[in-house]
């Protein structure tokens, strides 16, 4: 069965600093990978996704992620964090076998931004 690990439960960065959130997955086939963000009081919003092709994926709000098959990783990065980026971030792997569409999520990383 597939699984996703987000090793960092909480991360604090200063505004303007760079950010990297880690995600490791376990999946038998070619993974379909996602990053979602949940701001306080909001639903989950898709930041970016990887299905195939270029392993460096650009998303919304200046985020990017790199798929590294050899490391089973899909880390999320942003060169300069803004205070509005404070939120909880979720990495997920999609399973489309059997005609379904099931996301398996990591436990999330809570990002705090210091001004």
């Amino acid at each position, binding site marked *: 069965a597939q699984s996703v690990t987000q090793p960092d439960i909480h991360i604090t960065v200063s505004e303007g600093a760079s950010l990297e959130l880690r995600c490791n997955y376990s999946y038998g086939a070619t993974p379909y990978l996602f990053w979602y963000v949940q701001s306080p009081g909001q639903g989950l919003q*898709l930041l970016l996704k990887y299905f195939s092709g270029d392993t460096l994926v650009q998303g919304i709000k200046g985020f990017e992620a790199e798929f590294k098959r050899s490391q089973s990783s899909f880390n999320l990065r942003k060169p300069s964090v803004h205070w509005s980026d404070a939120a909880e971030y979720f990495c*997920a792997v999609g399973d489309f076998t059997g005609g379904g569409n099931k996301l398996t999520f990591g436990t999330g990383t809570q990002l705090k931004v210091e001004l």
Partner: protein
Amino acid sequence: EAGVTQFPSHSVIEKGQTVTLRCDPISGHDNLYWYRRVMGKEIKFLLHFVKESKQDESGMPNNRFLAERTGGTYSTLKVQPAELEDSGVYFCASSQKIMETQYFGPGTRLLVL
């Protein structure tokens, strides 16, 4: 275009009571999903509808949970009778086609006392 909406946003009930959660997907989305996040743990898949049919209900925890999607539009998730461990945030999502992005609603926060 309206997003996925969920009602109620919060619900507090006592153990043994019944609660019904509602989800309205994005118009035209045939695929509807329910997920749950319990006590700060990971978000877990519950089930997947394609129109009014259950495509995958492998994540439903037990027979106290009943999901329906009559007419292939909105869906309800009923918990009867509710137990303490059912507390958490219930998310609904929808997608136009399978293998397309799932769009999530804001969630319903359920507290069972």
